[in-house]
């Protein structure tokens, strides 16, 4: 199959990451979306857990966004003053 990129297959990359011990293999599995053949299947989250994570992340994102906006709004006149 022709593709624009001439890079190694995703499986080969996952195998190469297996050698890296400074991060848990679970992290590399999450990052690549590909588990090792010998890796145990993961216990799936329940819908309630997914919704709880969603709400937690929503609060964190809203907090970060609002906090940053309060500071960055002060910069709004800068382009006007420059130009």
């Amino acid at each position, binding site marked *: *199959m*022709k*593709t*624009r*990129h001439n*890079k*190694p*297959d*995703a*499986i080969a*990359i*996952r195998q*190469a*990451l297996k*050698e*890296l011990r400074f991060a848990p293999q679970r992290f*590399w*599995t*999450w*990052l*690549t*979306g*590909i*588990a*090792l*053949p010998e*890796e145990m*299947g*993961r216990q*799936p*989250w*329940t*819908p*309630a857990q*997914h*919704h709880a994570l*969603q*709400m937690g*992340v*929503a609060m*964190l*994102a*809203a907090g*970060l*966004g*609002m*906090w*940053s*906006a*309060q*500071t*960055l*709004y002060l*910069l709004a006149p800068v382009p006007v003053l420059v130009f």
Partner: protein
Amino acid sequence: MNQLIEVTFAVAALAGSGVLFAGLKVRGSSVLLHHATHGLGFANKRLNRLAGEWAGIVTLSGAGFDEYRRVHNRHHAHASFAQRGLDEEAEGLFELGFQPGRSQGALWRTFWLTQVNPVWHAQQSWARLRSNFFEGPLLRRVAAWAVWGGAGATATAAGWLPGLLGGVVAPLLLVGNLASYWELTSRHIWMVTSEHEGHARQLDLSHGRLMAPMPPVRWGLKSTCNFIASVAAKAVARWAVLPADLAFHFAHHAGWDRRPYGAPPAWADAALAYSDRLRAHPEIATQIYTSLRAAIGTWFARLEKEAPVSAGARLG
């Protein structure tokens, strides 16, 4: 100097919140609402619907429960990017310019230019706002006004309204548009027909989805920094736009995750090996650990054999 540090932190916080908002949008629409419309969320039907609507409202999804289910059922029935008039998700991509017969370069230009097109952003954002606040069942509209109106009233009382608009609503709309677009253009890589090198093109577009940083052969300063940066970039992408990864969608369209009213084994962020049903396919099970492309190729062949697209519906 202190002001410079404060601005730097603010920009970093805005970027961080943008990444989180992108992930929220994709999870809210393409995972939580999507699963709920398939009846794959909570066992209780009412709770399942409520949770789906809630996920859609919080992330300003472009469709409520009923509309999402209507469009999505057609998508499942006619899930090929080559079938205009049957699959509305495909129709949207076609209108943007993702059409058979165009050159690889033209498709890539369309892909990138769409994302920086302010008119496209305005249309997408307005469609999402309209869907939540002015269309759909009355109860859902009331809920949307209550959630966002309540947030607005609270922010106004606390003097945070500009922060809410500029730091929450605007990023949620803009970054959400992008995240959904990236997901939509790369999710169905096995579903295009082989005409006009469709498979190769779609796989090409999905390359970033499959690829992960390759460890360097020699760990010098430059190669180590490059590797760390690429891991960070992939981690951001993985969180922000790829929560429901290939294997899940692969199995989903095959009907392998339709366990009624329960969390399927491949819920949300499934990795390839987490799908037992996918492993059970004899050819794919062997290919999946040797070549992902070969496994996807097998799937292409199987899909075309099982559900050939009618000639009348094809483009090109």
